[in-house]
């Protein structure tokens, strides 16, 4: 008997806004000028706040910090597709997503300044905490999606991961669970092509990460991760589908980490300056600016005013983060359990 083909698969790719700032009008999602300006301003804000974190770290006012530079479109574009009642599960490189979701920015700074209150998410914001052990957040998002579905809530979960995370068992188990249980969860993979020094070809023998979705029965798509419109559209379609029972989606946002992995890393040890320069030309913010300029929504005067406003805001944020009253020593005990046992009380007394 000749071989039969049982199934055939395709891996779609979406780009709407190219690096020259030109859009493919047929693919363009519905976004008002105000929306586009919001996306742009958030990305500029995110980049400047990120820069501030880097200089705070250099000055010893912050600890190890992972820069988001270059990945702003993937972050802002995806978070913008969520409704407040949806949930967002970050990993650790999503400055713009946190901004879009309304996390008070001084909280973001506080976390990297080594203060637990940075992870205390305000009650009205459906964000989970930053997650450092790679890929371990993925099954949690799946469980949250199950809880939403079980409670008949019409909302979805967006969970972020990096390319490195796709190598961990947690990733495969989470994807499989999401597929089997047909859950309203969207995996947004920031494929910045590096996991610290590990390049994509050492991470996987797959041609794309998007195709990993297929094996688990999920929809998978690769988008230009430096194109805020493509990321937004793919995420919007995915969360809409998730909310209406269409199941999970895996989105690979193909992008590039322009900075070091963290402030503890020196990327020049494993990649060339030339490669980084090539990717600077594809900067997600520059191309959106070109687009806005073409639409007469951007001028140098506007940019100057925007940056001045942001800088002022950032100064206040840094002041708020650094000016916060210290936590009392009890705070390192109080949240271990709902109540302290004799042992914790004894230990607390011993160091007070």
């Amino acid at each position, binding site marked *: 008997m000749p071989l039969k083909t049982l199934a055939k698969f395709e891996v779609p790719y979406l780009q709407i806004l190219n690096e020259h700032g030109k859009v493919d009008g047929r693919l363009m999602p519905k976004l008002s000028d105000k929306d586009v300006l919001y996306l742009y301003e958030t990305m500029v804000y995110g980049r400047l706040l990120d820069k501030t974190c880097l200089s705070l770290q250099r000055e010893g006012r912050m600890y190890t910090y992972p820069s988001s530079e270059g990945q702003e479109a993937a972050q802002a574009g995806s978070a913008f597709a969520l409704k407040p009642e949806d949930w967002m599960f970050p990993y650790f490189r999503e400055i713009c997503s946190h901004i879009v979701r309304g996390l008070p920015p001084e909280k973001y700074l506080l976390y990297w300044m080594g203060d637990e209150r940075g992870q205390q998410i305000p009650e009205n914001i459906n964000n989970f905490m930053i997650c*450092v052990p790679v890929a371990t957040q993925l099954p949690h998002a799946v469980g949250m999606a199950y809880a939403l579905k079980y409670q008949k809530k019409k909302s979805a979960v967006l969970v972020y991961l990096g390319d490195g995370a796709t190598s961990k068992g947690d990733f495969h188990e989470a994807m499989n669970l999401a597929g089997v249980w047909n859950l309203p969860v969207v995996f947004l993979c920031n494929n910045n092509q590096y996991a610290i020094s590990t390049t994509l070809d050492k991470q996987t023998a797959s041609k794309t990460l998007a195709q990993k979705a297929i094996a688990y029965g999920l929809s998978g798509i690769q988008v230009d991760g430096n194109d805020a419109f493509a990321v937004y559209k793919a995420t919007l379609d995915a969360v809409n589908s998730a909310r209406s029972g269409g199941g999970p989606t895996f989105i690979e946002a193909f992008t590039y980490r322009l900075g070091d992995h963290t402030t503890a890393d020196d990327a020049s040890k*494993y990649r060339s300056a030339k490669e980084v320069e090539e990717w600077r030309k594809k900067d997600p913010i520059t191309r959106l600016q070109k687009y806005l300029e073409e639409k007469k929504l951007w001028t140098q005067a506007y940019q100057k005013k925007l940056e001045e406003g942001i800088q002022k805001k950032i100064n206040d944020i840094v002041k708020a983060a650094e000016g916060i009253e210290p936590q009392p*020593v009890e705070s390192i005990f109080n949240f271990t359990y709902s109540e302290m046992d004799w042992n914790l009380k004894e*230990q607390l007394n011993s160091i007070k």
Partner: protein
Amino acid sequence: MATLTLVQAINLALRLEMKRDKKVIVLGEDVGVDGGVFRVTEGLLKLYGPERVIDTPLAETGIIGSAIGMAVGGIKPVAEAQFDGFSIPMIDQLYSHAARIRNRSRGRFTCPLVLRIPCGGGIRALEHHSESPETFFCHIPGLKVVVPSTPYDAKGLLSAAIRDSDPVIYLEPKKLYRAIKEEVPENDFTVPIGKAIVRREGTDVTLIAWGAMVQECLKAAEGAKASCEVIDLRSLKPLDIETITASVQKTGRVIVVHEAPKTCGFGAELSALIQEKSFLSLKAPVTRVTGLDIIIPLPKLEHYYFPSADKIAKAIENTINY
């Protein structure tokens, strides 16, 4: 003789062991091109090539699980967990397999692998980067657990671990990586697994520690009125009970110091053993100065968590005045 940091001494041991035995290979995240996030494996890729120095995908279970297969298959993997906090999923493979392959196969198979783990805190690191998981490993029959606290021992113990015929967990105190330098012979030597060392002799109190806490004990001993003996265990499993017992029977007072949380920490094991072996010599209860039974605080408040020379000094006084 070269004057080396702990990092350089480990690196030298790896270079020499790989030169000495072609079966030795290194695997882990960022260990090749990058030379390791702490530069411990720097230069190995250039010397020995990508077949022996493997930049793995980000997959802790895969790293340790494949190392088990490699060890059974006749080569000698030295695997790296990038940080203490990420060694936790490896416990599944270690507990269920590495530790019991010799026993399950009645000796037909063995699993001589080494797992290197940068450990411990007090260095203002990110979440999950300041853990002291030694007890998890010590609790597993079939694993050996060693912790160097000096560059000399780091080299000698790693060579011994690599040449051992059983799985060895090799814990590297991050805080000491670049904190102390000492002369380390460049030639072949080992520090035997299972042998503690008396770092300072004394007659009133025995301080027992390993890893970064040895330095804190030495500091406390230096400033104490009482005469303190400081034992650096170096091997937690197997444990050098003779050195401990000899010291306890001399001083009659013991303080155990470790960074891990107090409850079920290795100090509890030592305390139990000491009263079993030397009950009649004790002049005061065995005291523990340890990490707290809480989640290690983020950098701003982490200093509350860790044992320090001050906390040890207080314990010395209390023990003497018991």
